[in-house]
C-alpha cells in the first residue's frame, strides 16, 4: 500500500514523542544552567599552573620557567619570562620561577600538548569553561595569579591523574632524600687507616660512590 513507509515513520516519531514523557533515554535535554551534566575526569578545557600549597600559590609553583611548553604550544599562546633571582621552591632548593606566565585563552586551542611536554608536572588541564569576559584582550589573558591553583584542586578535578603524579613526585623525593642521606653518612664515616693495597673490585666500587673520597 502506498504510504506504509510514511506510517511506519510516524509510528517511530510517536514512540519517541510519547516515550519522552516517561523514558529518560528518549528525553535527553539537559536544562543548562539549572542542570549540569557530570563531566568525565579526562575532560579538558584550558590549562592551569599547579602550586603545592594553597596558602602561598606564587611561592610554591612547580613551574621552573623552562619554556618547553612555550616552544611546543602550536598556536603560541603561552608567554613566559624567567625570573632574575632564585627563590626556594617547595623542596627548599633555590629555583628559577616564572616572573611572567601568560596564557591567552582566546588563542589556546586546548590541545593539551603543554601538559604532555612539561617535565615537572607544573601545568595541567583545568575543567572550567564559563570564562566569558567583556574585555577582548585583557579579559582573556590569564596571568600566573589567575592560572595558579593548588594541588588540592588538581586532586579534586582529576583524582586519578593527580594520584599518579603525587606518587611519582613522592617517589622522586624519597629517592633524592636517600641519596642525600647516603652522601651525608659517607661524609661522617671515620677516616680510613694508612692505605693498604686494596683488591681492584673494592677500589672501583669505592670510586663509583658519589661521596667525596676519604682523606
Amino acid at each position, binding site marked *: 500500500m502506498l504510504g506504509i513507509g510514511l506510517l511506519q515513520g510516524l509510528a517511530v516519531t510517536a514512540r519517541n514523542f510519547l516515550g519522552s514523557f516517561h523514558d529518560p533515554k528518549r528525553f535527553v535535554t539537559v536544562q543548562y544552567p539549572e542542570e549540569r551534566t557530570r563531566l568525565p575526569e579526562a575532560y579538558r578545557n584550558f590549562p592551569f599552573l599547579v602550586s603545592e600549597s594553597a596558602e602561598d600559590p606564587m611561592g610554591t609553583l612547580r613551574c621552573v620557567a623552562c619554556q618547553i611548553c612555550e616552544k611546543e604550544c602550536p598556536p603560541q599562546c603561552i*608567554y613566559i619570562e624567567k625570573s632574575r633571582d632564585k627563590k626556594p621552591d617547595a623542596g627548599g632548593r633555590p629555583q628559577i620561577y616564572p616572573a611572567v606566565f601568560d596564557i591567552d585563552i582566546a588563542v589556546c586551542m586546548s590541545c593539551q600538548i603543554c601538559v604532555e611536554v612539561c617535565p615537572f608536572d607544573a601545568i595541567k588541564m583545568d575543567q572550567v569553561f564559563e570564562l566569558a569576559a567583556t574585555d577582548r584582550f*585583557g579579559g582573556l*589573558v590569564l*596571568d600566573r595569579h589567575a592560572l595558579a591553583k593548588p594541588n588540592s584542586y588538581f586532586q579534586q578535578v582529576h583524582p586519578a591523574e593527580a594520584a599518579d603524579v603525587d606518587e611519582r613526585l613522592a617517589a622522586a623525593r624519597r629517592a633524592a632524600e636517600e641519596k642525600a642521606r647516603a652522601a651525608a653518612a659517607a661524609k661522617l664515616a671515620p677516616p680510613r687507616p694508612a692505605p693498604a693495597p686494596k683488591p681492584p673490585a673494592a677500589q672501583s666500587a669505592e670510586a663509583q660512590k658519589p661521596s667525596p673520597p676519604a682523606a
Partner: protein
Amino acid sequence: MESPEEIRDRVQAGVPEAAVSVVANPGASAQHSLLAYPSHALQVALFLRDDPALRLDYCSNVTGVDWTDREVVEADPLAPERKVKRLQPGYLEVVYHLYSMAKGHGPVVLRMRTVNRSNQVTLPSLTPVWRSCEFQEREVFDLFGVVFAGHPDLRRILMWDEFKDHPMRKDYAEPDDYEWEPTPHGSVLEKARLHYPAPAAPAGEAKP
C-alpha cells in the same frame, strides 16, 4: 606490483620518445618516484592509465612543491669517490600519486618539474587523462603558480580571483596587518608593534 625501475622500462618501451627516470626516496617509506619531462608527460600519463598491466586509472593526489635554490651534495661525475657541492637552482614540482582501482595496486608516484620558479612555470595538465586532477591542479596553480597548459578551467580555487601572489611559495611575504595580541612571540610581535599601540598594561606584573 612492479618496481619503479620496471615501470620505467615499460613506459620507455611504450612511449619511446619520452624520457622517464627514477627518483630515489631516501626515507623509511621507500616510495620511489618516476620523473617525467613535460614535453611528453601527457603521453606517459595516457600510457600509465591505459597499459593493461598497469591500469593506473585513479589519480589520488596532486601536490605542488616549491623547491628553492639549494645546495646539493653529490658525487663528482669526474671522480665518483669525491663529493662536490653545487647550487641547484629552484623549481616548482608537481607530484601525482596514481593507484589502480581495477587491479588494486599502487602507488606509482609521477613527478614533473618546471624550468624555474619565476617565468617558466608551465606544465602540461593531466586533467584530460584523470578528471580528479581538475580541482587539485587548480589548487597548485592558485597556491604555487604553476600554469597547467590544457586545463579546462584554470583559475584560482581557494584564494579569491583578484588575489595576487602565490601563498604556498617559500618566499611569500604575508601581509603584516596583524592585530595586537597579548601573548605574541618574535616576528608577530614586531609586526603588531608597527601597526598597533599595546593597550595599557593591567596592574600587576609589567608587560613588555
